[in-house]
């Protein structure tokens, strides 16, 4: 007893250590994984799945219960508002497969699918700030800087957070909604709001794990999902900003060769119609091939003063859509603005055959309708909810396939009202 008392503090420390290891192990693993994504070696497919699983288990038991109920009844608990099927059934491999298939297919056969529509000619040109009023920026800390110090901060919408990766983008609870305390995920936000242009700048945090191919694959899957939710939006893939030569030469996983390889890989995702690749590095790099030294203090982030270079590049390299903006600057605009209704671009996404569950007969005009009014205002759930109109005939809950985009409409609505 005396000996015990003599060593009381060491014993106490050991006991708390055991308690810490016991209780905190799970939490530790999750948080560790989340914060050390770039450090995780291995295939990003694993990362992807892991991420999906984590995001479910991270939200606690609720997620499991919800899953269970959804499977049984097809009408999930109204309390779990705005859950997406892609997330609710995370471990369904077909889900992923069909998404990526969707992406690869959508490029070519489009012309055959919609023969009567004349292909709108894509014109890249200069736009002004108002172009970004219905633009969304997705990204990591670099985009946070853009949203905080750029001139677009009050014009465009920014869903960006430090440490963001493409793997956790959709499930990240970073979007603040008016009159809601809890932040919602990017995926949920994309179900509620409409954007016409979506800019993505991501990849520096991912450089430490996976390969360029696996990264691009995950990137493509995210884009496919975004297109599904925002069929009208133009998606801009911004090339990952490079780092300074000095930073690149430091010898760790962050180097310009890796960034270039990944930019090359994600630039392949562009289809020239709805998805465009922007080589932002042109605007901020020097002949060394890296970020200009004076533009940054840590070699990775642009200083606030030089954010404008990035913005100017985006303004100079925007897709001019019929009547969207930049009308006077480019003579080519009238050509494509003439025949097409701005609300109905040649959007084959909802009628894509690659997605069998998606009820084909939808009128593409309906979901689009809400767009021109005010892109940033939440779509009124009841009458023109795109998800509802996309599936006028609710499916039999018994064979509700995992992909059915109509599914979440019900809980989402319930949750809101």
């Amino acid at each position, binding site marked *: 007893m005396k000996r015990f008392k003599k060593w009381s503090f060491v014993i106490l420390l050991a006991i708390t*250590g055991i308690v810490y290891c016991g209780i905190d192990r799970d939490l530790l693993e999750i948080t560790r994984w989340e914060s050390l994504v770039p450090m995780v070696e291995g295939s990003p497919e694993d990362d992807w799945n892991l991420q999906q699983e984590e995001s479910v288990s991270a939200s606690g038991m609720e997620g499991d219960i919800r899953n269970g109920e959804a499977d049984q009844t097809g009408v999930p608990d109204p309390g779990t508002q705005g859950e997406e099927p892609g997330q609710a059934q995370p471990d369904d491999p077909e889900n992923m497969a069909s998404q990526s298939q969707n992406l690869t297919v959508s490029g070519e056969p489009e012309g055959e699918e919609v023969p009567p529509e004349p292909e709108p000619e894509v014109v890249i040109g200069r736009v002004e700030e108002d172009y970004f009023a219905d633009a969304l920026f997705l990204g990591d800390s670099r985009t946070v800087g853009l949203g905080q110090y750029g001139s677009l901060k009050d014009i465009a919408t920014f869903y960006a957070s430090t440490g963001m990766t493409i793997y956790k983008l959709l499930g990240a609870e970073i979007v603040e909604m008016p009159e809601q305390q809890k932040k919602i995920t990017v995926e949920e936000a994309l179900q509620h709001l409409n954007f016409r242009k979506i800019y993505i700048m991501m990849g520096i945090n991912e450089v430490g794990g996976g390969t360029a191919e696996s990264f691009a694959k995950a990137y493509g899957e995210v884009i496919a999902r975004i297109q599904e939710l925002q069929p009208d939006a133009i998606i801009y893939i911004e090339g990952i900003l490079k780092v300074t030569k000095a930073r690149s030469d430091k010898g760790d996983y962050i180097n310009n060769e890796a960034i270039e390889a990944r930019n090359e890989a994600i630039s392949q995702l562009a289809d020239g119609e709805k998805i465009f690749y922007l080589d932002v590095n042109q605007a901020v790099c020097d002949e060394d091939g890296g970020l200009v030294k004076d533009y940054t203090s840590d070699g990775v982030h642009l200083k606030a003063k030089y954010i404008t270079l990035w913005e100017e590049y985006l303004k100079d390299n925007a897709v001019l859509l019929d009547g969207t903006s930049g009308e006077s600057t480019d003579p080519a605009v009238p050509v494509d603005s003439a025949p097409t209704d701005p609300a109905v671009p040649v959007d084959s996404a909802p009628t894509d055959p690659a997605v069998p569950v998606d009820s084909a007969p939808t009128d593409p005009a309906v979901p689009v309708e809400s767009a021109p009014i005010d892109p940033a205002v939440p779509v009124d759930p009841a009458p023109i909810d795109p998800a509802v109109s996309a599936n006028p005939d609710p499916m039999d809950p018994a064979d509700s396939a995992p992909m059915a985009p109509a599914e979440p409409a019900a809980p989402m609505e319930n949750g809101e009202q």
Partner: protein
Amino acid sequence: MVFSSIEFLLYFLPIFILIYMIVPQKLKNVVLVLGSMVFYAYGDLFGLGLLAVSTAVNYLLARMIRRRSGLVAALAANIGVLILFKYYQGGAMLPIGISFYTFQIVSYLVDVYRGEVAAERNFIDFAAYVMMFPKLVMGPITSYKDLRKQLHRRRCDAECMQDGLKLFILGLGGKVLLADRLALLWNEVQVTGFESISTPLAWIAAVAYSLQLYFDFAGYSVMAMGLGRMLGFKLPENFRQPYMSASVREFYRRWHMSLGNWFCKYVYIPLGGSRRSEGRTFCNLLAVWLLTSLWHGTTGNFMIWGMGICLLIVLERQMGRLWKRMTQNRDGGKVPMICHLYLVAVIPVTWMCFAIPDLEQLGIYLSRMFGLRSAVAMYVGDWQKALGDYGLLLAAGIVASTPMVRWIYQKLEKKWFGMILLAVCFWFCVHRILLQGENPFMYLNF
């Protein structure tokens, strides 16, 4: 190896302490030297060679030196090596802790020459003095004279060990929970660029940096003291709530005290201190602060910092004399509040000179602090956002800069409640370190 790393906390320290406690008294110094070599080699194998050679050579030199010329040659060799690495290698290959152990060796050689202490006969004991890992990397700079008795014979039991461990955890908490997290604000401001921050943010960030620097270094020093006590040593206190001072003079008597004492004993006093004319005192102060600047670094900003401090000290000295003459000591030694305000306003400005090596950038920062230059691409609410993100942390830092923490620690250290708190604190620190990586910047997400 860094104290606040997983390798040190969960592997090196427990294993070392276990071996150290088991071996008989006679072998403890051997274990200490070997353990310190492992500790050092983990970060810098080349530096270990230099450290070992330096230890062996100075052990012999101290026993041989009889004449003044011998001492001068020995000092020149030691300081020459320091200068060589510090100033001609661009700092890239700077062996860890060389500034600290060189100063200790110098103090040892001088003390032995002056006859204040006898040269150590036992090589292992001398090596233990130079190399002991608690103070090897960042001090405190301890004279051999203060440690001699303990090197030969010291009490080392469960009580010492646990008292030291508790103290270590206190320092670890300061470093991991305050310094490392406050550092993120300073990092944010750098990333944004100094030309784009608002004046309030410039001040908030300067305060955050001041606190970060303090908890980083003071936390480290407390950890060193704690580790020393675990092994049975009494290492000197290095910080005594410096931000509670009422003048810059007092501040530097309470900040990095072991370095201040070293300069006082081996530079200021031999030059005559303040016992001669005012002009001579000024020159002596100037010499001390020139050397202090050079010790911290060779870039121009350190010179600006050191000379700024020197100027303030000289002015304070004259003001103090004037004040004394005016009041004729009737103020009863009470320090007016305004002195404290002056200190907390002026110190963050001097720390900015310390922190920003690029003089042009330093100019931009200072001009933003005083609104002398308008900002570019500023985000108007930046300082509110910073306060929102770091307000609690800053408040915690300010509270922890007062004597309150010490006081509470002494009250609770022996109680069960306090011990549980410390144990939880330790594992929470481990948790934070695992999350952020040892260095908040190394794994900082973008």
